[in-house]
Structure formats: C-alpha cells, structure tokens
C-alpha cells in the first residue's frame, strides 16, 4: 500500500487540487486520498459542487450575434470571392 493512498489532505489543499481532479490529472494514490477526503467532508463536497455549478452556468453563456453590417459584409465578401 502506498502511503500516499492514506494521506490525509487538509481542505485548503483539496481546493487547490479540484481542477487536477476534474481534468483527470492525478495519479491513482492522490486520487484515492482526494476522494476519501471528499467522502468524509461535506464542506469540500460543497466546494466541488460550486465549481461544477460554475462550469455549468458558464456553459449557458451565449456570444452576442454579429451586427447586421458585419454579417452582410461577410456574405458580400463571399460572393465576391466566388464570382468567376
């Protein structure tokens, strides 16, 4: 058994590891320690949920439509380019 697998990580370190965890950028022993901490810590579980909520809300942001002028300009340029 790796000693790292039973390492107790403090909450303050957990929050710095959340991205590595979500990105799958952790080795197996660290992942085990991370998940063991989460299983016993509702606060860090809430933290992870807030990060996941942030990602979810960010995914609903839409970019503004192009201005009609820019859009028309692009189509005109396309026609110009395609003209034989």
């Amino acid at each position, binding site marked *: 058994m790796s000693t790292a697998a039973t390492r107790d990580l403090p909450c303050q370190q957990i929050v710095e590891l959340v991205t590595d965890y979500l990105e799958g950028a952790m080795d197996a022993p660290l992942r085990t320690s991370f998940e063991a901490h989460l299983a016993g810590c509702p606060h860090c579980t809430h933290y992870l949920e*807030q990060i996941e909520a942030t990602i979810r809300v960010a995914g609903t942001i839409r970019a503004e439509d192009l201005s009609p002028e820019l859009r028309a300009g692009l189509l005109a340029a396309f026609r110009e380019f395609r003209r034989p």
Partner: protein
Amino acid sequence: MAVSPPPDEDAPLLDALRVGDERAFEALVDRYGPSLLRLAQLYVSSRSVAEEVVQETWLAVVTGIERFEGRSSLKTWLFRILTNKAKTRGQREGRTLPFSSLASDGDEDQTAVAVERFARGGAWATPPRGVPEERLLAGETRARVEQAISALPPNQRAVITLRDVEGLSAEEACNVLGISETNQRVLLHRARAKVRTALERYLEDA
C-alpha cells in the same frame, strides 16, 4: 479509427461550402461567427479591429477550405485561425497575451480560496454552502458569471472561455492557444476559482 470526424452537423455544411454554396457559408457564419468575435476581442483593443480579424478569418476559411482535413473539429480549426490572426493584430497594436509565461500572469500568489476562510491546519473555518440548483438557471446568475469572466486577466479569460463557455476539450484549448497542458490547467484553475468566488458571493447575498 484514431481520428475523430467533425461533428455531424458541420459535415454537410462543409461539403456544401467546398462547392461554393452561399447558404452553407451563411449557416457557418451564424453558427460560429459570434464565438469568433468574442474570442477576437480578447486579443485586440477595439470592436472594429476584432470585426476585421473575424473577416480575415472567414476569408482564410473560404480560401483554405481545401486544406481542412477534419483532423480537428471545424470549431477548433476556426478558433485556431482566428487566434493566429488576432495575435498578429494584437502584436502590431503592442498588445500581447503572455500565454507562454506563467510568471507574467500577475497573480502567482493567488489561492483558490481566501486564506482567511481556513483554520490553522487547513480545515474550513467558513465553509461553502450547498448549491441552490433552482437559482442556477436564472438569467441573473448567468449575468454574474459572465461578468466575473470578463474581469479575469486575458489569458485566464481565454482558457475558461474556450473550455467552459465554448466546451472545447483541454487538448483543443491547448491547440487553439498554443500553450502546454500544464499551463492550460493552471490558468483554468485560477479562472474557475475566481468565478466560483463571484458565484458564491452572489448566491449568498440573496
């Protein structure tokens, strides 16, 4: 097959664009134009220059469509062309994003969560609360998150925009921005942490 094909919905449009179909071009402009403009605005100072960069990008797409081999998704290919053009413009303007360098991020000492929120020994002193799911759907919540993203340093903003707003994979984002996986992850970590802080503050205010 090791190569993933472009998303199904782009494939017929690409075929049509290759034979000069204007409607296909129009559909692609409507699908990706807004995202391209948003991305361009990270690199250049004014909206009008950003619009020029978008125009140059579409011209490059039309003239270079034969060179698109579908090794990446169309979206990633478009974003890559755009960032290259936008970077060139930004450099001419004397405005460059320090993507290659973490040291120039300007906030190396930042922690994901303010140190005051932890007790000695690193356990939570002021812990975060559960997420009120029903409030996440509100337009106001989205507006706050959008605002927090706009306030980020440009390189963090670019990474979180590509990853969480546009939904690119880590590999695609690295490819578009020309940065390493580690650099991408660090920037994403800082960006998400700051946006989470803003979201938490907003949700607790009510």
